[in-house]
């Protein structure tokens, strides 16, 4: 066991942190959230140049074949600054299914431009039932002459407005089972695709994507017909741990801001941090944050090593969901009224924690998965 970063990891962390702190200060985050696009193309380009989009992709596509463990460090630093960008949707929700399920042509066509920063991707999985299980997929793909016709309503699709392609999860066979689900690479500008923005608590860009007789050719099928859910299953652990990575960063930053504030803010003629209540709050926060860190990196390490880690992944999200939220709540309480203002930066984390709690299953959901793994 080794709880420390290796020298290379430490360099990666530091350099990522430097870029993020310089390019993505809180003022930038707030401005970008208000902007319709929701990201900065300039920063996006810089990120591509730094090789971030290709971090976990093979060199053959222009990637740098980094480990998922190291990639988590990258995500942690993004979470630390609440980076608004289509990175998660493009690389994790878009790139991974293509890498996992695409044929050579698709990979050759899509991965290099994605890695170069020329392609924005997203995944349309959730539908009105609001679930991440096969029985939540009701969108229909009907066989046509040239391929398929897609109909349905997708919800909570990140960055659909700027995406070039939307990977749509749809049913090619009736029912509620995993078998019969297929993935389609849909041109976001195709006829019949309508994106309606949703207003979200964290200000990130999510959309309703209405599919009305959208034509897709057979070439745009990702993986095997009816077997699309296998692709989702294969990448899903990484999706969850990537989310946890961002949460680790956010939780750590919240703790840091709170400690700094407790040291500098005076009340009753002494620093706030002299109060035992504040001290105990902060001590509880450390346990939450360190817990997020260890449990997340344990899962990331296992993914990197190719070990089976269904339980560890569920544990990570179960813990991070609750812990990050608790940390932001306690952080707010220590900050008092100042933290409740839009001007202050703390609310970015408070909102982010709620968003991440709800995405990809909350702690109830993941604890049930843990119970399953315990044989309960």
């Amino acid at each position, binding site marked *: 066991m080794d709880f420390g970063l290796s020298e290379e990891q430490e360099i990666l962390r530091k350099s990522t942190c430097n870029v993020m702190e310089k390019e993505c200060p809180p003022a930038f985050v707030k401005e970008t959230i208000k902007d319709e696009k929701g990201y900065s193309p300039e920063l996006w380009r810089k990120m591509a140049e730094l090789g971030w989009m290709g971090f976990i992709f093979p060199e053959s596509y222009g990637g740098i074949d980094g480990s998922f463990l190291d990639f988590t460090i990258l995500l942690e630093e993004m979470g630390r600054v609440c980076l608004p960008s289509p990175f998660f949707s493009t690389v994790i929700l878009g790139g991974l299914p293509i890498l996992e399920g695409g044929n050579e042509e698709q990979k050759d066509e899509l991965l290099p431009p994605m890695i170069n920063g020329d392609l924005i991707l997203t995944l349309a999985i959730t539908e009105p039932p609001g679930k991440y299980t096969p029985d939540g997929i009701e969108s229909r793909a009907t066989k046509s002459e040239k391929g398929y016709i897609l109909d349905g309503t997708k919800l909570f699709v990140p960055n659909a407005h700027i995406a070039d392609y939307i990977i749509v999860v749809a049913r090619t066979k009736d029912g509620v089972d995993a078998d019969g689900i297929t993935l389609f690479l849909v041109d976001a500008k195709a006829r019949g695709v309508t994106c309606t923005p949703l207003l979200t608590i964290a200000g990130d860009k999510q959309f309703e994507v209405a599919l009305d007789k959208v034509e897709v050719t057979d070439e745009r099928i990702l993986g095997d017909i009816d077997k699309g859910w296998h692709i989702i299953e294969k990448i899903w652990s990484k999706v969850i741990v990537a989310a946890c990575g961002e949460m680790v960063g956010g939780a750590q930053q919240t703790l840091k801001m709170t400690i700094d504030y407790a040291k500098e803010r005076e009340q009753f003629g002494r620093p706030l941090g002299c109060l035992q209540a504040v001290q105990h709050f902060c001590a509880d926060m450390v346990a939450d944050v360190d817990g997020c860190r260890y449990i997340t990196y344990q899962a990331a390490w296992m993914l990197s090593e190719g070990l089976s880690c269904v339980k560890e992944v569920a544990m990570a999200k179960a813990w991070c969901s609750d812990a990050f939220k608790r940390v932001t709540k306690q952080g707010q309480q220590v900050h008092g*009224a100042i933290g409740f203002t839009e001007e202050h930066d703390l609310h970015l984390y408070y909102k982010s924690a709620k968003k991440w709690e709800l995405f990809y299953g909350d702690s109830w959901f993941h604890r049930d998965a843990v119970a399953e793994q315990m044989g309960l």
Partner: protein
Amino acid sequence: MDFGFTKEQESFRQEVRDFLEKKIECGAFKIISNGWLENSSQEFSKEMSERGWIGMTWPKEYGGQERTYMDRAILMEEMLTCQAPIAYHFLADRQVGPAIIHFGNDDHKKEYLPKIINAEISMVLGLSEPNAGSDLVSVKTYAKEEGDFFILNGQKVWTTGAHRADYIWMIVKTDLDAPKHKGISEFILDLKTPGVTVRPIINMAGVHSFNEVFFEDVKVPKENLVGVKNRGFYQLMAQVDYERAGLERLMQNYPVFVNLVEYVKKEKRNGQPLSKDPMVRNTLAELEVEYQIGRLFCYQVAWTLTQGRIPNYEAALCKAYCTQYEQRLSDAATRILGLYGQLMPGSKWAPMDGEAADSYLWSVSYTLQGGSLEVLKNIVATRGLGLPVAKK
């Protein structure tokens, strides 16, 4: 012991309900969390005034109705259930009026009380300053005596509603040399007085609810000082028991609960109502029990006031408990809604018109305003239980 209401109380409650139903029917306001405080309507307040519902506990000699605090609690419970727009008169009715009755002179009473009761003026509280939050005695805004005037300089912050109010009721320093507690006085000040500047603060829910208020060489007539000079802190401490007593600290986001319960009954998951999910049931039942406990705490305070006793620690306890409940409610609501729980008001697909998410943002302020949770617990421990005052 008696946990029921009298016939008169029940019929009063019905009267308030009928009034509110009519107002809602004719579209006077919408039932929305925090609406009671965010929506200010002089017109609505005037209608309440006509019914004797402002200053209803005050002595008749000041235009009040001399009704009990229990009646007022019933009134408030109904108002808050609908989140009626009572902000215009709320602070003056709850706090400033009683303070004037206790500490004001005859001129103050003649000048302000009728206007409050008739909903002709709106008032806000100016307590916190940038370096005096929980630690109120550290206020630095200074009123210097000069002839018949005080010259006011300084700044208030987190002043809820100052942008739409007429008067500010404030504590300021009047003796720089005295020990902190003994150099503070209470003033009432017209916000249109030259030298007063109100600047908006936008909160994290994106709403302009509170303000900074700056005072630059503001000339305040001496008669605006209320009560005894340099005794303001002690006067204030006597007032806050009223502030802390109310159902408004339990029911700020009450519509969230009502709507959530309805939502889970209708919404289906796996072919059966979400209300059959054991985690959801347990969570909602827990909130219901906690709510009912909070309601009993609130009525206990109203009962204590009705007995003519000061709800010493009970008011602090009640507020500490209730505001925490409201936070748990908004958290549970967003969570039960799942991915939908992140959708804000106005969003397509937002259940309960986004109130859950919105209330999750507002809820941050609940345990801060009017005495933070920690300060309230200190009060319970020291004033209520007689534990020794801790070194801060």
